[in-house]
């Protein structure tokens, strides 16, 4: 029986010729990731179990990105714990303030993930690296501790949904609209325990940043992972970043899928998700005019250069609407530099945006943009759950960078094409 891309990678990491959906396997890991919220819990479990060795100091990445630069004393203590652990084991890929970026933008940028590799991360959006044709999935802190100690993790081999993309995106429509549309179609548990495997001629029309955005939110459909085939755009991205050998996988021609979802990219409209689930989607025209008080442009979902370009193209020469706070967070230091070189940062600041050093802060209501009672944000982040960015009566509308930027200008949810 044919295997999907995910199944082929999992078979290889488990040293097996073939695997099938539902099979439990133990596989070798190429990278184990944690952040400043999940790593301390992993360290506590690691120490409690009396472990004294990590499997490979070069295959562990610790990124202090969530509550950093530290928002309070307790966060500083957690970072100190992670920092001490990284020093104790000479962890090669330890990223502290000044080098760190939002982890899922940073790791691909640093060449730490390549096609066919197996990555677990104690952060649910670890599925982002599927954009590079890797198998990557979010786990908890105990899995991270086990992965750091052994280089192994257990997996239940997932079945898959094939998402066939055709056509080409219209102006002002991007990867965020593709994934919000998909989640709206299949629901927040539509891919529970499954892979989302992207295929079709439409893949070639998507840039890498769009693919990262799409794979990033696979978890928001309940998926174990989202994965793209490797093509010329992937190779161009990897060129100069990854110098170790890697092997791309393709699905077998007779790979078995639970079902297929076809998306015609040319038919997609800018799409938003209303509170309080990412599946609560509408096209922007259906909800245009809804007032917002805050705009967040950034995160592991939409804090990359292409995202900033799209936002800046709208904000350049315009002003953020009175009564609206617009916060822009380039996801890594390199993205910040590139955005400066292109004049994007100047455009944001002149428009009246606050531009921040990289942090996950506002996405999870941590810092750098927490909402007050009854406030509503439009945000390029990935979750609009109750209380995610502030008190339980605050609201988040998820949107693309273009829609978020257009809404910042008008103070209401706005179709960028209407400006």
């Amino acid at each position, binding site marked *: 029986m044919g295997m999907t891309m995910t199944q082929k990678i999992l078979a290889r990491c488990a040293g097996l010729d073939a695997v099938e959906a539902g099979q*439990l396997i133990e596989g070798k890991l190429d990278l184990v990731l944690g952040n400043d*919220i*999940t790593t*301390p*819990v992993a360290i*506590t*479990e*690691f120490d*409690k*179990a*009396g*472990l*004294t*060795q990590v499997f490979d100091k070069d295959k562990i990445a610790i990124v202090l990105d969530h*509550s950093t630069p530290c*928002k*309070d004393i*307790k*966060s500083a203590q*957690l970072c100190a714990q992670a920092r001490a652990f990284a020093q104790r084991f000479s962890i090669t890929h330890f990223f502290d303030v000044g080098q760190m970026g939002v982890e899922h933008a940073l790791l691909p940028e640093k060449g730490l993930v390549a096609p066919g590799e197996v990555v677990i*991360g*104690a*952060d*649910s959006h*670890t599925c982002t690296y599927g954009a590079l044709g890797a198998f990557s999935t*979010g*786990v*908890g*802190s*105990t*899995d991270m*501790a*086990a992965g750091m*100690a*052994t280089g*192994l993790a*257990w997996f239940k081999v997932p079945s898959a949904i094939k998402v066939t993309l055709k056509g080409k995106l219209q102006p002002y429509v991007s990867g965020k609209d593709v994934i919000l549309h998909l989640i709206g179609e299949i629901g*927040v*548990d539509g891919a*529970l*325990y499954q892979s989302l495997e992207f295929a079709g001629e439409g893949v070639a029309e998507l840039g890498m940043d769009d693919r990262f955005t799409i794979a990033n939110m696979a*978890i928001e459909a*309940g998926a*174990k992972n989202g994965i793209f085939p490797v093509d010329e755009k992937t190779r161009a991205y990897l060129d100069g970043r990854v110098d170790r050998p890697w092997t791309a996988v393709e699905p077998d021609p007779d790979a078995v899928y639970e079902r297929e979802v076809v998306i015609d990219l040319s038919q997609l409209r800018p799409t938003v998700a209303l509170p309080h*689930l990412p599946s609560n989607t509408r096209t922007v025209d259906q909800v245009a005019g809804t007032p917002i008080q805050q705009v967040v442009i950034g995160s592991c979902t939409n804090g990359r250069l292409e995202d900033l370009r799209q936002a800046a193209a709208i904000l350049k020469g315009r002003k953020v609407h009175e009564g609206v706070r617009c916060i822009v967070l380039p996801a890594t230091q390199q993205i910040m530099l590139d955005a400066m070189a292109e004049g994007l940062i100047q455009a944001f600041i002149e428009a009246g945006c606050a531009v921040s050093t990289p942090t996950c802060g506002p996405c*999870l*209501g*941590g810092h750098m943009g927490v909402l007050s009672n009854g406030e509503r944000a439009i945000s390029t982040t990935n*979750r609009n*759950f*109750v*209380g*995610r960015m502030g008190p*339980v009566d605050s609201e988040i509308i998820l949107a693309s960078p273009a829609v978020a930027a257009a809404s910042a200008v008008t103070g209401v949810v706005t179709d960028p094409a209407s400006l």
Partner: protein
Amino acid sequence: MKVYKYGDNVDTDVIIPARHLNNPDPKALASHCMEDIDPQFASTVEPGDIVVGGANFGCGSSREHAPLALKSCGVKCVIAKSFARIFYRNAINIGFPILECPEAAGEIVPGDQLSVDFQKGIITDETTGKEYHAAPFPEFINGIIDHGGLLNSLKARGVAK
């Protein structure tokens, strides 16, 4: 014992909001457990109580703080129609019992008295007299649970040092 019943898609942000993740002490997490969906939960929950959820329980963030908070409250187990996969593996890895049983999750109501046989996966609603059979864990996962969690099982095998 009491039953706390919630709907579909109970996410880890409502089980333990991110604003409390800066203190991962289990007791501190327990004191804020479920506060954004049920402000009375943390002050009324008692050891042995059971949480019943709908589909996709524990969706969202990978924070292990979520099953840890419930466990630390003394919650005996969660029964749900289905679990989000990271919550599912986190619960197993920390030795917190969860039972996937759509029928039980649909029919049990607050006020019911339940007894649970984890070995056999049998949930008995003593109030209605009805018996439910949850999907049993595979042998591999039972091995993790029997060792009291993932790290202990890996140590017992000699692969973690």
